[in-house]
């Protein structure tokens, strides 16, 4: 039931954003359609709907987005430097890192943020053992622990607080 309410609110917000100057007609249509969608598919939307009411998690989500943005810009400037350099100073390879995050949402966001904002891109995830295989543009360490520290650590702690 909680999951249905969350889906209803999310749908309604997106609908109102798409038709921004709110008028009563579209509001009524949005409520009807969101209610219909939430009634049919609401149970599949979240596995653990009780975490929506934890205020602390939103704070950590905000911190996560700020860190993501700053690291993303830094990684992009790094990539621009490598591409514009005449010698193309890259050193690619696939390394394995280990993560403590277990939930599907946390793992997805961790892989996303690795791809977006470090010098690496996630290739595969082994959810049972907690391994993520990442393709690095510039391999700095082939040791699992050191690579985890370099690539995943800064997002891992924040995501653990937000989603575990």
């Amino acid at each position, binding site marked *: 039931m909680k999951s249905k309410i969350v889906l209803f609110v999310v749908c309604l917000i*997106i609908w109102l*954003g*798409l*038709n*921004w*100057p709110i008028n009563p007609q579209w509001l009524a249509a949005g409520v009807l359609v969101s209610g219909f969608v939430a009634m049919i598919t609401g149970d599949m939307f979240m596995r653990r709907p009780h975490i929506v009411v934890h205020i602390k998690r939103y704070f950590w989500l905000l911190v996560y987005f700020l860190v993501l943005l700053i690291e*993303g*810009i830094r*990684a*992009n400037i790094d*990539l*621009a430097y490598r*591409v*514009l350099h005449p010698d*193309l100073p*890259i*050193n*690619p*390879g*696939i*390394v*394995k890192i280990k993560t403590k995050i277990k939930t599907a949402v946390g793992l*997805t966001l961790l*892989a*996303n*943020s690795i*791809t*977006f*904002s470090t*010098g*690496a*891109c*996630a*290739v*595969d995830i082994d959810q049972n053992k907690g*391994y993520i*295989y990442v*393709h690095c*543009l510039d*391999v700095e360490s*082939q040791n699992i622990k050191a690579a985890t520290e370099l690539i995943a650590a800064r997002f891992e702690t924040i995501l653990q607080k937000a989603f575990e």
Partner: protein
Amino acid sequence: MPEIGRLLIIIGLFFNFIAILSLLRMPDVYTRLQAAARSVTLGTGSIMLGVFVCQGFSATGFKALFVTAFLILICPVCVHALAKGAYKSKVKLADESVCDQYQEDLNI
């Protein structure tokens, strides 16, 4: 306000230019995908944010904001899927590569 928007759009165009340049210069599929993942996401996101700043809180501005949000969520997932698909269909890594720990684990 429109000046800030235009500045964001110019930054976005620069990063998209970097992405195209790296598509041409990088040696193999995976390194090219990295360029797509990073520069295209930030570049296009920046352009869309610029549109939002220019338009303000109107229907167009909100659509641009949604595009930014979905882009940041979905673009890395697409790149992840493409990289995994390329690996499963046995696309080789470039000759410069130093290690491949995925292959080692698959062979066990």
